């Protein structure tokens, strides 16, 4: 295994008096897709959200152990959370585009870093019509990032004629790819996906899976999924969580071929879940 990009050691997460994660330790290799599987409430989403400190917003949460990303313990209280989240992007279960145009959605992550959006109208009250040829030829950093991200997210061809439309006029699958484009526009190292396909139809799901397989050459991807077939199709490594503990972690072949632990075998064979 190449040098890990994420190292988790003895991670504990408590919500008030409830233990959500207990003593989780493992390494994640760069440029791989790591699938996190397990029943509802097993702690996999909690684990994912601890990687970009999204749990900070819950008032009763307590965390212990270390998570090292790029040589830095991100659970340290002095960690710059804003900077961390620019390196660790996230896509949520339901598509969550902002009530803005397609273009402005993708540009948002760069705008908040202080880069001026060249396509912004006065008070955002009117929508400027954006020509895609002009955009592709532009050397403005936001224009370039939007075009690149939409192309990487396999959405460009579908939206290039309606970049100024509200993001809500896209289909569910397109909205989710827009959220992926929005996340990769700021070029994070790591992309976290929390059941990104659970509200999508099989065709859109397939589209996103293909997209993720293409993205892993540039990003390290962690995906929480209830869909075991999905984990089998796209993941390089798989971690199985159960009642707050990481029961088993191994290559997809090991986990789905002949897992070492009885609990894992029962879960992947569908005995519970």
């Amino acid at each position: 295994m190449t040098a890990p990009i994420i190292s988790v050691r003895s991670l504990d997460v408590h919500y008030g008096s409830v233990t959500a994660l207990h003593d989780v330790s493992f390494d994640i290799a760069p440029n791989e897709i790591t699938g996190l599987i397990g029943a509802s409430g097993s702690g996999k989403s909690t684990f994912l959200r601890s990687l970009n400190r999204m749990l900070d917003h819950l008032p009763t949460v307590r965390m212990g152990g270390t998570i090292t990303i790029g040589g830095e313990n991100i659970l340290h209280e002095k960690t710059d959370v804003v900077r961390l989240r620019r390196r660790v992007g996230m896509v949520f279960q339901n598509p969550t585009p902002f009530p803005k145009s397609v273009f402005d959605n993708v540009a948002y992550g760069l705008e908040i870093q202080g880069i001026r959006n060249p396509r912004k109208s006065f008070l955002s009250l009117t929508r400027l019509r954006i020509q895609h040829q002009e955009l592709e030829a532009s050397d403005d950093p936001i224009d370039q990032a939007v075009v690149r991200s939409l192309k990487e997210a396999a959405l460009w061809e579908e939206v290039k004629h309606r970049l100024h439309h509200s993001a809500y006029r896209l289909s569910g699958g397109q909205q989710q790819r827009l959220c992926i484009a929005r996340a990769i526009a700021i070029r994070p190292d790591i992309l976290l996906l929390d059941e990104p396909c659970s509200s999508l139809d099989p065709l859109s799901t397939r589209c996103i899976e293909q997209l993720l397989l293409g993205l892993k050459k540039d990003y390290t991807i962690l995906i929480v999924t209830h869909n075991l077939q999905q984990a089998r199709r796209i993941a390089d490594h798989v971690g199985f969580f159960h009642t707050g503990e990481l029961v088993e972690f191994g290559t997809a072949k090991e986990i789905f071929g002949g897992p070492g632990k009885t609990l894992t075998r029962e879960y992947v064979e569908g005995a519970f879940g």
Partner: protein
Amino acid sequence: MKRPPASVTERIAFSLFRLSAIAGTAILILVMVLLFLAGKDALSWQFLTAPWQHGDITKGGIFPAIVGSMYLGLGVIFISFPLGIGTAVFLTEYSGDTRWRRTIQLAIRNLAGVPSVVYGLFGLAIFVHLLTFGMSLAAAVLTLSVMTLPWIITASVEALLAVPRAFRESSQALGATRWQTVSRIIIPSALPGCITGGIIGLARALGETAPIILVGATFYLTRLPTSPFDKYMALPYHTFILATQHSSPSAPAYAAGSALVLITLTFVLSIGAILLRLQFRKKRVW
């Protein structure tokens, strides 16, 4: 006794609902029509643009009262709208402890029910005397702003709380600070609701009579206010005097005419806000 079939109950219920809807609308239309009939003789270009003549009111117009009310309306918008949204943002986004927030919110809701004359007395004590603004436009604008604040805050808090949590999370997950999330995502999404609160507050402020009598509204001025510390005329007070205190035979028609102008002015000031709200709403689909 046998119950009537469901379809009959439904028809009766719907008829009652329809009846109340018609009654509500009819009363409103009736008021407008009667007001128009009573005031139509007074309405003329001179009525709208000439200065007030105390001796023979038919020689003058209500221009100073229109200007005075316009100043009041604009003043209230510029003071209480930003202040109200600011308070609401603080309450929903920054004051973490929810019990503290609920107590304040409850207090603010109760303030919305305080009679307007009490705000008048408050304005008289604080703005006129303590801050020595005197009986003036400034004191009246501040008094009416304080009075409309609870409405704007309450409407804005509701609007801010209705913004989906997913927007906040998505913004923060992209590395936005709390302020960036609030200023770029949450406030723009909530703005239509906040503007609704502003429109209601504005309409109420424009129509108030009791508080402005206490803080400097005047029935007869020979010139327009030139500074915020001047006295002023205002349409509701003008209407009130004409309808109850004036001896001229044309006073009732002038009172109705002034009331019509007041309604129109309220509508004109609101329509700007309504158009702005439409513009923001167009983009807001979730």
